[in-house]
């Protein structure tokens, strides 16, 4: 009996010492945490996508509290509602949040372009790109091995006919795919854009034509016909200024290669 009592007492004393030590330590060495940071963190969606430019939601929340000049609307997945909530917590003005989605600027499906070689290597666009600029005839186009789909936190990217496509309803606009794509084919555009250029080729018109029948040949017909002056052709590639574009759909009618894709246009547009 005595053995048991000694064991229990010794253990109890050790536990008591540990407990008292920890209690005292947590009382006297408590670190006063900023109460705002967890509150701001609560407003963020927790996707840790890094679209704000910080290392995850915690990083952005800490930076918001620390830096009063930092805009509260940097969170793309959280959108306007997150910005409003953060603004309310921190008592700051909320700027406008434009919802952005990813757009794959390439229409080079198997039907319109062809591979210049058989690639049998690591299943990654970045690796394929190292070999002669990729296996496709067009070195600017989508390599179709899905590096973007792998990094997408929302599984919003899928491959159709050798080209990545974005499910815009699932896309949260974090831009990870745009950062990952070795060819920089993916662009972040406003979700409300009317027209996009589905080609990234800066080759001369004839060379583009040889590689892909759906590529932008830089003919400038769209630039000349755009009433709003929203389309400019630079380095043999058209690009749309989404703020100026009115969505009249004129460019879609004149484009000879069909690399302009209408998303939300007033006039009946021909499908590219």
């Amino acid at each position: 009996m005595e053995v048991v009592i000694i064991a229990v007492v010794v253990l109890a004393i050790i536990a008591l010492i540990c407990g008292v030590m920890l209690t005292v330590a947590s009382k006297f060495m408590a670190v006063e945490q900023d109460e705002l940071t967890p509150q701001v963190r609560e407003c963020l969606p927790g996707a840790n996508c890094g679209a704000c430019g910080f290392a995850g939601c915690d990083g952005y929340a800490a930076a918001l509290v620390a830096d009063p000049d930092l805009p509260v609307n940097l969170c793309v997945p959280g959108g306007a509602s997150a910005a409003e909530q953060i603004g309310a917590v921190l008592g700051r003005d909320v700027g406008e949040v434009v919802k952005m989605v990813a757009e794959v600027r390439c229409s080079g499906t198997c039907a319109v372009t062809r591979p210049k070689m058989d690639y049998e290597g690591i299943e990654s666009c970045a690796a394929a790109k190292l070999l002669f600029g990729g296996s496709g005839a067009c070195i600017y186009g989508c390599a179709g091995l899905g590096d973007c789909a792998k990094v997408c936190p929302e599984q919003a990217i899928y491959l159709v006919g050798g080209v990545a496509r974005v499910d815009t309803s699932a896309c949260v606009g974090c831009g990870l795919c745009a950062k990952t794509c070795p060819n920089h084919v993916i662009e972040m555009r406003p979700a409300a854009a009317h027209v996009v250029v589905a080609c990234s080729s800066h080759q001369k018109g004839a060379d583009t034509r040889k590689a892909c029948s759906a590529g932008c040949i830089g003919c400038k017909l769209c630039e000349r016909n755009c009433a709003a002056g929203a389309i400019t052709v630079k380095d043999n590639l058209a690009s749309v200024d989404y703020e100026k574009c009115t969505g009249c759909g004129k460019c879609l009618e004149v484009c000879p290669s069909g690399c302009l894709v209408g998303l939300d246009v007033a006039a009946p547009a021909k499908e590219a």
Partner: protein
Amino acid sequence: MSEVKVIIGIIMTAVLVNNYVLSQFLGICPFLGVSKKLDQATGMSIAVIFVMVLATAVTYPIQYFVLNPNDLGYLQTIVFILVIAALVQLVEIILKKYIPALHASLGVYLPLITTNCAVLGVCISNVDSYLLENAAFGSSFVHALFNAFGSGVGFFLAMVLFAGVRTRVERCNCPACFKGMPITLISASILSVSFMGFAGLVENLLGLG
């Protein structure tokens, strides 16, 4: 046999011959879990070295002065777990207060180590092996501390080696059925086999018995 030689022997034995992860198979959980990236592996290992030395420094006197005189050797496991857990918590609180930079880099790993079997294993094996020497408290305690440090360094070595191996293996085109954990376990076993080559090294190198 000079004291320095003994200490070098202890450290080399702990790092290479009796490597806690690769020869004694303790601490496999963080070995497989945190070895995906080199910087994480390094952070975790440094935290382990730190906690191993600290835990030995605390549990060894407890065994020597509290448990053994009272014939309570059988309470070793429960007392050690209790003390190590409390100690790690205390260290975390102190680090957070006084060395925030160190807390930021080690903080995530400290709670993980609380119940790490390698840490408990080091404390128990230290107590078991050095108390047998019947030496005075001072010298056996110093040996135990060096053994703990060496074991921590051994863990560090295993983690860093394996993190390197894993990054290479991840890039390899291995058969689909081996992808992920299976190939990781196989590479861990090969690494462990390679450490068998160190058996007998220290005795012959330093002429220890």
